[in-house]
């Protein structure tokens, strides 16, 4: 005889129910797209739910003084995607780069770098915190993700996640809680200059309040979806697909 509910499922369920009780009906902001099994899932949900509860007023991440900007902002991970399509765009100084915004948007669009720069702009001096341990302060300039979605006519009612793909094969998803945050920007400038190659040219994502691995570099496309099911590993990100926590507040 098989147990109708395994212990793992029960534990994951217990965590999920606990967080639901905590926040009432607005579960979206408190749960990852897919809760991991076992005790790890309980730990994930506890972390995400408590942090999101503390962030429910959508406070801004700390912004620093110009004097605190790190000179020579470090580069980490991939600093030059070898993919052919990227190399071609790089040699053309990204004039032909286009960012398609598809999925559950009312008017799918494709933005050039110039289009992006014409959108409302935001500049913020914030700290980049890598999950591995390092941190540095940079001045980022870009278009809020919310403005990009507005340019695409807004999102459908059932839109829940924005999926971002990169030229080097990475992807991550962001729930509406992070998407609407004013500091979530598509950055094309660092410290007053064009975003350097090693830091993710031509455009990278800034999701302040989240670890470095959610701040994707070398953006390729944006896709708005209602569920992460069936998209690659189904967990909502390249990191969570290999058994990391999807929520990266820490």
């Amino acid at each position: 005889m098989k147990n109708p509910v395994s212990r793992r499922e029960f534990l994951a369920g217990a965590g999920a129910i606990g967080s639901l009780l905590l926040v009432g009906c607005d579960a979206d902001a408190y749960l990852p797209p897919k809760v991991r099994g076992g005790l790890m899932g309980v730990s994930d949900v506890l972390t995400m739910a408590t942090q999101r509860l503390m962030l429910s007023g959508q406070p801004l991440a700390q912004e620093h003084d110009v004097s605190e900007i790190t000179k020579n902002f470090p580069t980490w991970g991939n600093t030059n995607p070898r993919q052919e399509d990227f190399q071609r765009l790089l040699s053309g100084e990204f004039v032909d780069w286009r960012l398609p915004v598809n999925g559950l948007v009312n008017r799918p669009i494709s933005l050039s770098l110039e289009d992006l720069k014409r959108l409302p702009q935001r500049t913020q001096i914030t700290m980049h915190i890598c999950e591995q341990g390092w941190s540095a302060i940079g001045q980022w300039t870009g278009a809020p993700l919310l403005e990009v979605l507005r340019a695409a006519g807004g999102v459908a009612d059932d839109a829940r996640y924005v999926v971002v793909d990169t030229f080097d094969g990475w992807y991550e998803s962001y729930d509406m809680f992070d998407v609407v945050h004013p500091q979530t920007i598509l950055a094309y400038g660092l410290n007053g200059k064009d975003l350097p190659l090693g830091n993710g040219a031509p455009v990278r994502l800034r999701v302040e309040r989240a670890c470095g691995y959610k701040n994707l570099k070398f953006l390729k496309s944006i896709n708005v979806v209602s569920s992460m099911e069936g998209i690659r590993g189904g967990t909502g990100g390249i990191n969570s697909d290999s058994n990391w926590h999807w929520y990266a507040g820490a």
Partner: protein
Amino acid sequence: MVAFCYLVVSGVHIFLDFPELYWGKVGFRGYDAVFRLSDWGISWDEAGAMGNRRWGRNYHFLFAWISVINGTIYVGWNLWNKYFHKNLFLGRNELNWQSLKTDFVDHVRLRVSKGTSVGRYSGLQKISYLIVIFILSPFMILSGLAQMPAFTAISPELIDLFGGRQTARTLHVICMLWMILFLVVHVVEVFVAGAVNEIRSMITGKYVVPKEDVE
């Protein structure tokens, strides 16, 4: 105890993936470090190969939650039933230099308490337990939180209080070393005092006073 060991081991795994410590707000490879594992003969790559950051990270957070929940219940329960008041808070007679000094010498010489003082915590013991429960443990939690990106928005004041994220990370490691020191001394003392008897007393509350000590 199990949770503490997991936290230390998983913390070491996380550290090995980035085996340098810095002071202030920022720090990265190539920046002025206050501690470099490579200065101790273990290169960056060797350290990375020794550590498993994914495993470390997952278990570090899981056992952090277990410790926080367990610790809250422990402290809450013992404050509620006045256990700390009775056994841990120091009486006026214990808070004098002379008795603490005698106590210290006794401990260093591994002299075990006898007779009427058996079964009671000594002044020095009380102070070290109080430090671990009410200073080091909360310090570990807060310096851990101060490293999290979400806290740049939840409470940047907390990060500034530590003097920056990298300082919080460095102090997190130093505080852990203090806790390990406490644990080592504690375990040595337990063995000196008779391990079976002591551990039984921790769990069941029963402590057998050795016969020859009874006056």
